[in-house]
């Protein structure tokens, strides 16, 4: 119920006028609709008025019918149009709000949410709410107006008959309410089952190469089969429930029609007096015309009764859909701006971690009590085992997550005191998990800076060693790359991500394992290019290649969420321990030998 009230508030907030017009049409439509049974009743009375052959009276009534009907048509037009357009406008508002909310919810939210599920909220649930506004909010007015109008008309015509005909209305109302509760639960089941099925499909399609690599088609089919069957049964259950309700309601309505015929007919017979002399018939009770009118009032009730079924449905759906939408819209982003957040100007780049801890799940620390001080312009290398906390460390600087404890400052300013936008404008990060949009390469590079000139784009592409590859493509920068970078090799994707970040020209740069799929030669070229642009910037480099580490001013060796060792390459080598291990496993054995061999061979080459 609170969900429904919120939806109604949404309508009232911006679309009062449209809603009011809708209601005016609703009332107009109800009133004019009521005229039709009355006029039909009159026609029958006219026809029955024995002896007189009043054809002109019939014409008058026919024209009156035409007028009433046409008026009703126009009002129905208004009702349909305003109901539909209001619902579309609200859907538009919700979609925008939903979209924007998702953009601003922090990583912790998106870690846990499935794309498929979010999409189903944005499509099916928005539609559920929209249908309710259309069917429930506006047309509900129509149903109420019609039921009241018909009730009044009937009771005024004949009290006893009116009561008989309306006896089924409370029954309907009761059914509508009880069914709504059960239906709502059933639709929830459908939605949940559908969500699971969609997730299965989504994962299957996104991971198709894994499926192919392992010939897991049959396994996937059986996984899908379970989900699809659950959906099938859930939908069937809901539909069965709905059908039961619908047919019972329909039955009640038709039975009432029977009651009118029976009771009303009796009433006509009881009140009929035949003048023996003239043969004229006088009706002291109900007249046959009125009886006909009753039948048509009942006929008129079909529409609202039928709609009641739909409405109960839309009501339940909206309650569950609305709940799912508001759940997201109300989600408090774990990372949020303070109300008094200030704009951070372009920083120099002194980054300090003061006793910082972070836990993803509230129990285990992914980082514990980290203290780091990085001066402007320094290059910091982060190394360590998988899962040791390097990415976590990097993600704290642009506030993708908030530290559970401790503070992070840039140029002495707590990152939590500034607006997210200004903070992130100061920090460029190339994430470990590269995401490329379905768009041209040029558009992808310019993603963070829509107004970049072609020269700027070319320049960063050159630094990332991508320009020559792009220049060799038939469509060059206009080449469209597929989803998640389809059509690019692993290393090309990474370099595209580097170019994208460089274009933002940030004073603090973070490269999270950004050249892991790039060969040493190209990596070297990228580094050379970067050195040029990095001058004066503070840089964090997560890497597993010691070649990239040696030039760092500080090396942080991560282990199980702690900084195990820190210092320069030489210092750490001298200290021994973790870093030395790392060094030896990768470089030491090959270092001298390799240099020797290369020098030898180059001499050979040179003599060719």
């Amino acid at each position, binding site marked *: 119920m609170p969900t429904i009230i919120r939806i109604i508030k949404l309508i009232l907030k911006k679309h009062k006028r449209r809603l009011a017009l809708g209601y005016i049409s609703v009332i107009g439509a109800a009133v004019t609709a009521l005229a039709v049974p009355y006029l039909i009743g009159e026609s029958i009375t006219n026809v*029955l008025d024995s002896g007189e052959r009043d054809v002109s009276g019939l014409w008058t009534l026919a024209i009156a019918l035409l007028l009433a*009907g046409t008026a009703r048509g126009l009002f129905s037009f208004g009702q349909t149009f305003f109901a*539909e357009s209001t619902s579309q406008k609200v859907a538009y508002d919700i979609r925008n709000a939903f979209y924007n909310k998702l953009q601003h919810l922090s990583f912790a939210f998106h870690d846990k949410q499935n794309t498929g599920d979010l999409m189903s909220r944005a499509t099916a649930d928005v539609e559920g709410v929209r249908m309710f506004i259309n069917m429930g909010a506006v047309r509900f007015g129509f149903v109420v107006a019609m039921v009241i109008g018909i009730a009044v008309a009937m009771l005024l015509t004949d009290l006893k008959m009116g009561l008989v005909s309306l006896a089924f209305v409370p029954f309907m109302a009761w059914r509508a309410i009880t069914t709504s509760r059960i239906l709502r639960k059933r639709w929830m089941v459908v939605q949940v089952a559908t969500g699971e099925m969609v997730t299965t499909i989504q994962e299957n399609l996104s991971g198709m*190469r894994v499926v192919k690599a392992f010939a897991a088609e049959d396994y996937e089919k059986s996984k899908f089969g379970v989900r699809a069957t659950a959906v099938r049964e859930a939908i069937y259950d809901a539909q069965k429930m709905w059908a039961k309700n619908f047919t019972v309601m329909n039955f009640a309505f038709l039975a009432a029609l029977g009651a009118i015929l029976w009771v009303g007919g009796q009433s006509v017979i009881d009140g009929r007096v035949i003048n023996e002399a003239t043969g004229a018939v006088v009706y002291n009770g109900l007249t*046959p015309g009125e009886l006909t009118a009753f039948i048509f009032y009942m006929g008129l009730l079909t529409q609202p009764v039928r709609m009641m079924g739909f409405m109960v449905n839309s009501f339940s759906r909206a309650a569950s859909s609305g709940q799912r939408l508001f759940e997201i819209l109300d989600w408090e982003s774990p990372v949020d701006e303070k109300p008094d957040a200030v704009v951070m100007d372009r920083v120099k780049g002194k980054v300090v971690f003061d006793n910082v801890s972070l836990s993803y799940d509230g129990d285990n620390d992914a980082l514990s009590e980290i203290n780091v001080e990085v001066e402007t312009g320094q290059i910091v290398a982060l190394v360590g085992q*998988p899962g040791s906390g390097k990415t976590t460390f990097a993600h704290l600087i642009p506030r993708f997550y908030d530290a559970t404890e401790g503070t992070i400052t840039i140029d002495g300013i707590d990152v939590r005191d500034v607006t997210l936008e200004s903070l992130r404008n100061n920090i460029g990060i190339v994430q470990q998990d590269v995401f490329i949009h379905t768009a*041209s390469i040029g558009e992808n590079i310019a993603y963070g800076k829509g107004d970049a000139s072609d020269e700027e784009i070319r320049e960063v592409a050159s630094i990332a060693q991508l320009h020559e590859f792009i220049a060799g493509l038939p469509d060059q920068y206009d080449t469209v790359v597929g989803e998640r970078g389809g059509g690019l090799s692993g290393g090309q994707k990474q370099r595209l991500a580097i170019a994208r970040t460089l274009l933002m020209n940030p004073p603090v740069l973070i490269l999270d394992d950004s050249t892991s799929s790039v060969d*040493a030669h190209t990596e070297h070229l990228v580094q050379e290019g970067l050195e040029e642009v990095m001058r004066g910037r503070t840089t964090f480099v997560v890497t597993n290649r010691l070649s990239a580490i040696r030039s760092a001013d500080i090396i942080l060796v991560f282990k199980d969420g702690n900084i195990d060792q820190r210092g320069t390459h030489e210092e750490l080598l001298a200290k021994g321990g973790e870093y030395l291990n790392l060094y030896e496993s990768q470089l030491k054995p090959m270092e001298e030998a390799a240099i020797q061999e290369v020098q030898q061979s180059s001499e050979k080459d040179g003599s060719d």
Partner: protein
Amino acid sequence: MTTRSGGYGHLGRSHLDDVLMGNLYDHGVVMRLVRYALPYRFWAIIAFVGMMGHILTMVAQPIIIAWGINSFVLGVRGDSDAWGSLSLVGMIFLGNVFVNMVFNFLQYIALARLTVNVLHDLRTEMFAHLQSQATSFYDRNEVGRIMSRIQNDVHQLQEFTDVGITTVGDILMLVFIGATMIYLDPILGLVTLSLIPLLIITMITWQKKSRPTFLGVRMAISAVNGNLQENVSGVRVTQSTNRQEVNLDNFDTLNKNHLDMTIHASLLSALLMPVVETLTVLSMGLVVVVGGIRVFDGALEVGFLVAFLIYVQRFFEPIRMLTQQYTMFQRAMASGARIFELLDIKPEMNDKPDAIELPLIKGDVVFDNVSFGYTPQEEVLHNIDLHIQPGQNVALVGLTGAGKTSLVALMHRFYDVTGGSIRIDGHDLRDVTRESLSGQMSMVLQEPYLYSMSIKDNIKYRRVDASDEAVEAAATAVGAHGFIMDMDDGYDTMLQQRGSNLSMGQRQLISFARAVVADPRIIVLDEATASIDSRTEKIIQESLKAVLHGRTAVVIAHRLSTITSADVIVVLDQGRIIETGPHEELLARGGLYASLYAMNFGEPAPQFQNGSDDQNGTGGLRAPTI
């Protein structure tokens, strides 16, 4: 680059062309749907019986009313006959209503059973069909677009079958009512029906006018959803590049466009209301005048006049419904067409009809003059000749974009070669079934893709029946056991989408363990340890030696410390093999490999020049092709 700001999410070089709006009735689509219904003809028959029962009882009701009215309007007060007939009429009417309810219920239940089954089968078939599509299909078609077919289009059909089939009932009802009216009083009947042509003309004109708008609505909403989908997937990039506002602007443009379209569409559909309404009362007016005159003339009983009026009311009610369902029909036909279009796409790499089961292989792989390109215009691999001995450990090395991933993809038959052939144990890959081939090969992909299931289930992905010990052994071999046990739920820890609650290196290890558990004859590691530090890697290598023993292994790595011990190192450059040999030999040769090797620890070779784009092959990096 002029369209930089807009259009994300809907750019296509797509194979699946979207038919957006169908005809009102598409015979091909309907007939194919009927085929899916055949297995459930029992329910179809019940539904039909229910429908007919419903229609006939509905059509009978006005006649019962007419009978009632006639019998007591014309009856005499106090006449027990009149009383008797009225009670009888009342009872019969109630009986009719009850029977009507039963039939109606039968109809709905049987329909529900029928349609959920048909749609379920359709969905299942689509899913199965998608599994049989080649990798190149997925290169061309975005996941979102395929999703929309299996999700929205099937949903569209669901709606259609829910309401559409009752429409068939409505149409039947029209026929029965029309026939009854003509039977009861031919003149009055024809007068009433005379308005039908008018209605049909109006409908046809209206649909011509409204078609583009409804088409526009469909295109607009798919653009909206495509944009949203991509935004959700790429939200981390959005936040790190501060693009929220631009994105919202773009989205708002699409959303607004959709809104305008729908409002226009709602105007159009609402326009039909007054037309149908006016025709209804026009026809009632005609019945009143003509019918009244006929009553005066003694040609018609009053009860039947009432019955006629009821018929007119019931006649136009379905028509009113039909106008509302009109666009749904068109959408459903288009959806059906799209679904069948998808189902009709032949998998590019079906097994040959006479494909054989690849017997248990030794792991002897031959690339015989292989060429390959993703598109016909651009060849990525040129004339590759390579012989990998059973049990050999081969390393692939080369500059980024050289074609290493492509080469192993061919070996796994993700794609078919465009020239030459690949043979495993003497069998051309194209002559064996894909199942028997993939069953003996495992691949650790460059980008680890994990499912939102438990870690254990992820590792068991290929061998669902693997024992817990086997899972643990594999995890231990790749060095993942330690961190898995550190997690609260150990192997039962649930992974989030794409494994996002693990670090990248951890994801690579799980994906590695998954390949090991599969117990393949040939294992391919495509930068399987790129995000793993060299110390951890070294530890893994020791234990892996045992695991890889006796299997053919192809390893791609940029960090050359990973592969120094390989039996053969193959160096690829721009799609050609330029060097092969063991580590020492290649070092001594002083070519590309030696340069890369030197650079691995940050010391460029002295004569170092730009290698990757050096077309003439004169740079120090270029070695003579072997």
